[in-house]
């Protein structure tokens, strides 16, 4: 039992190591993307940036955000297994954050987190093999990276990706059945799902669903959905301002960027905070986002663009309710975080 406890502590340490390397990546991606979006035009296909200079900033920002998840899993594995963990960690994180296999599954940052841990322990185990001295030299550059990446990667693609896809299909069917029959329930489902994995398979299901309805001229569910992306990051930012004894100064400094990213509809800004403390952060952001979504449903908010948060305010229908929904959702998230998170001094004793 003591072993299990110290192992959990090691995993926690690895997650924090991953976050510490990912942080600058999130900031670069978030800020550059946010700057470029300020000049964007809301169109039917999303937020279109047309100015060539801003478009280049947009490309840079997107590149950094695409790297952040592989960097997270890479350094989680590195923290557990040392240098040989980096290669499988990076590759598997990339795989988790992109669609793979015939089924097109994507597990996002939660998948990457898990794969980083698995890769780390797998490599650590491989390092303990007693091998012939003639082979030992090629272990770190040939055998460990190829075997660990190959074995875990293929297991992931063949074993995890398939049930995951049927799971997202199930969610999709669930959402479709809810539509029309019970708008409030639909809003709760959309809010919870959006905040659950911040861009992973569950969020993607909602995106497919609302965009699918848009093509049929139904803009309501998309309006509900587009209230959500800014709530987790802005809620975290607000909470760091309101509850000084629950967050460190470093949290407060980092949360300023996060808040700005939320304003611009980039949920990813919240990921470092979620990874660092899943069990307190996720319930707060999910409930806060669901509250925002319900208010949007009550106010009949509609949105014609596949992007969210305040930056799309000029084009949404029901601007007042859209604003109220985001603000209330943000405040609820912030207050719940303040209640749920342990005081800094208490956390220290653990």
């Amino acid at each position, binding site marked *: 039992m003591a072993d299990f406890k110290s192992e959990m502590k090691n995993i926690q*340490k690895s997650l*924090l*190591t991953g976050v*510490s390397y990912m*942080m600058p990546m999130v900031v670069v991606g978030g800020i550059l993307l946010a700057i470029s979006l300020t000049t964007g035009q809301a169109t039917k296909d999303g937020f279109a940036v047309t100015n060539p200079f801003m478009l280049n900033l947009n490309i840079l920002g997107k590149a950094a955000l695409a790297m952040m998840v592989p960097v997270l899993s890479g350094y989680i594995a*590195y923290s557990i297994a040392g240098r040989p963990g980096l290669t499988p960690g990076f590759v598997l994180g990339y795989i988790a954050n992109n669609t793979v296999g015939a089924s097109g599954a994507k597990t996002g940052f939660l998948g990457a987190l898990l794969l980083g841990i698995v890769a780390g322990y797998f490599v650590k185990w491989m390092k303990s093999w007693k091998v012939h001295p003639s082979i030992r030299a090629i272990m770190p550059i040939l055998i460990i990276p190829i075997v660990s990446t190959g074995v875990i990667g293929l297991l992931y693609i063949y074993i995890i990706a398939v049930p995951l896809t049927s799971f997202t299909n199930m969610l999709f069917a669930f959402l479709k059945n809810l539509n029309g029959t019970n708008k409030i329930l639909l809003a709760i489902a959309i809010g919870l799902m959006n905040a659950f994995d911040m861009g992973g398979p569950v969020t993607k299901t909602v995106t497919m669903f609302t965009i699918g309805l848009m093509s049929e001229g139904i803009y309501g569910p998309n309006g509900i959905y587009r209230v959500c992306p800014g709530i987790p990051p802005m809620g975290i930012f607000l909470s760091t301002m309101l509850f000084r004894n629950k967050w460190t100064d470093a949290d407060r*400094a980092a949360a300023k960027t996060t808040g700005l990213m939320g304003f611009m509809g980039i949920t990813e800004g919240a990921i470092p905070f979620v990874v660092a403390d899943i069990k307190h952060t996720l319930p707060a952001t999910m409930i806060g986002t669901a509250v925002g979504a319900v208010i949007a449903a009550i106010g009949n908010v509609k949105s014609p663009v596949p992007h969210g948060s305040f930056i799309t305010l000029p084009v949404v229908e029901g601007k007042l309710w859209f604003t109220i929904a985001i603000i209330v959702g943000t405040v609820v998230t912030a207050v719940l975080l303040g209640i749920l998170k342990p005081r*800094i001094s208490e*956390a*220290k004793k653990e």
Partner: protein
Amino acid sequence: MKVVGVTACPTGIAHTYMAQEALEKECKKRGFDYHIETQGSIGIENELSQEEIDEADMIILAVSISIEEEERFEDKLVYHADVNEAVSDPKSVIDKAIDFYKKNKK
């Protein structure tokens, strides 16, 4: 008494340096020789050399993440402390480290 140490926190912009300062102050008060390395988001600063680590009577790692160049401390008796505790209560960290060395040396 020669003390060397490393401080590192996840964000690497505030607590890392606060812990360094607190430990240095406490060592100074006790008249110890000290050298505390920081590993913030900027990387390693105030780096410890292998000789310093070899000669040290006490090694304190006040870190909450994996650190760089950890192999320097391999085969050494190392006291692991919490980086937050080093900020808020450096006295107790040093006391515990001294106890730890008394118990485990030889």
